[in-house]
């Protein structure tokens, strides 16, 4: 039976290697400075993906600005302030359920509330707010987990020295938990960067050769661009499509792998 379960693991590893290998082998030849730093041309069949990379980075940055304060504060609430009662239980249930809401449903919500009701239109801001809702549970959970790993001795020592509750959290607990919070946030944001369905209905543009000039303009984004190239535009040279896929996967997975590795190093280094 060890062989059977081993075969399952081998299948998983095989799938991962295949995904990575296929994208690297087919994508790498299309990558050049010109591809990364020029605009798409000939109906997206030639040229580069510069506006697409910039659009993605702007969207993720704006999402980070919105989601990080909210998510980290909510994480502090759960780890440091939350009483053991029904409300806290409900908060936890909501977070677990938010994590399971399909991303296209977040898209519907963003369309109804941010695009139409609040009249932000299809824009960077509407998409970033939608992704904020989608990423929030990830940031909250990882922040809470990081704070819980800080031993209570540190909190009690700070309180015994006369610090108020917030001061002890702000000056002692948060710095100690910072590596965990930072890596958790990076992981959450890198997932947001790869989301397609929610931005499809809230602001990503099919084709927009200029860079977005404000948070109320539309934008191009890597995941949506890959979808467009793969299914909507005929006769795209394979190196353009695979190159786009390579940039997306390389960006998202490199960032998450580095963040994940750094977190486990930190965990091993700091022994409370």
């Amino acid at each position, binding site marked *: 039976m060890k062989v059977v379960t081993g075969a399952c693991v081998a299948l998983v590893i095989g799938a991962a290697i295949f995904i990575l290998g296929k994208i690297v082998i087919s994508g790498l030849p299309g990558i050049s400075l010109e591809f990364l730093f020029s605009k798409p041309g000939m109906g997206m069949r030639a040229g580069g993906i510069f506006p697409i990379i910039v659009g993605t980075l702007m969207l993720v940055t704006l999402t980070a600005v919105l989601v990080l304060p909210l998510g980290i504060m909510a994480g502090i609430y759960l780890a440091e302030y939350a009483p053991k009662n029904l409300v806290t239980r409900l908060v936890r249930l909501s977070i677990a359920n938010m994590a399971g809401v399909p*991303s296209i449903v977040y898209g519907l919500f963003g369309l109804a509330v941010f695009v139409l009701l609040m009249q932000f239109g299809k824009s960077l801001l509407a998409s970033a707010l939608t992704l904020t809702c989608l990423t929030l549970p990830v940031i909250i959970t990882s922040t809470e987990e990081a704070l819980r790993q800080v031993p209570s001795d540190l909190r009690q020592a700070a309180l015994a020295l006369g610090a108020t509750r917030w001061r002890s959290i702000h000056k002692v607990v948060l710095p100690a938990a910072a590596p965990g919070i930072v890596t958790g946030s990076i992981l959450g944001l890198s997932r947001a960067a790869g989301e397609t369905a929610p931005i499809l209905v809230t602001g990503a543009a099919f084709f927009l050769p200029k860079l977005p000039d404000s948070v109320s303009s539309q934008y191009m984004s890597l995941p949506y661009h890959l*979808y467009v190239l793969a299914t909507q535009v005929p006769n795209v040279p394979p190196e353009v499509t695979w190159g786009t896929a390579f940039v997306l996967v390389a960006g998202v997975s490199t960032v998450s792998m580095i963040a994940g590795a750094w977190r486990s190093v930190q965990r091993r280094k700091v022994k409370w």
Partner: protein
Amino acid sequence: MAVTPTHKAGRRLGRATRRRAVEAVVRTLIYAAGLLSIVILAAIAIFLVVEARQSIGEIGLDKMLSGTQWFPTGTPKLFGFLPLIVGTLAVTGVAVVVFVPIGIGASVFISEFSAGWFKEGMKSVIEFMAAVPSVVYGFLGVAVVIPWVKATFSLTSGMTALTGGLVLGIMSLPTVISISEDALHAVPDALRQGSLALGNTRWQTVYKVVVPSASSGIFAGVMLGLGRAIGETMAVLMLTGNAAVMPTSVFESVRTMTGTIAAEMGEVVYGGQHYSVLFSVGLVLFAITFLINLAADLVLERQRKRWRR
């Protein structure tokens, strides 16, 4: 001379008051942020209902749920959800067949039969698979799985429920494996040692003691994988061919609920009937995934309580 102490005392009092004020403000902000998730989840439910209300009033939820034909632009317009629901079930069914055995098998091997370095390595593999965006899985499916399905089963088109389900099954593996492995890992070693001491073999121990003890966590992992598969949009949109007809086998093209919303929302008049119908589809989708996640969460909570001591 008497001025200084009073002055100092006054300043100290001022600082204490200020600190208390800061403390109160911060506390309020943090409590507000803490409650935000309830607010957002409730707002999602409320706005889905608000936007779906028009279609529910004009067509009726029962009519939509039991309708067998989906012709949103035909005359007369037909908004029957059944083809979409069956499409979702077909794709998800294939995914379950892929991810349940492979996911549970892999997590048993990682937790019970492998060394520490291997576990660490597998963590990176799982993290990588979870980090790959769904649109990339969809693209790989278009490039690799569609031609493979077409050739292997000699079909006229490789865009089938089977294609979508296979890719979806692989995409759900990271969720299933990481949660099941956590559950297996949480089983106390005393149980394993007790079983081995009674003369059971390693495999008997796993099969009769460890897996049953972790069964609720494994169940939760499977449920979360299922939720992910039902809610996944881009990969199925790119792989299943999107024919909104009742499939008779998994070798036919299907259209899922998620795919319908993503494909048609770009073409509707905002505020119109079709727009509202798509929100009704979203509402059904939200209700299904909500129930699945609730079940998984309740089971996980029970498991957490069981091994706390």
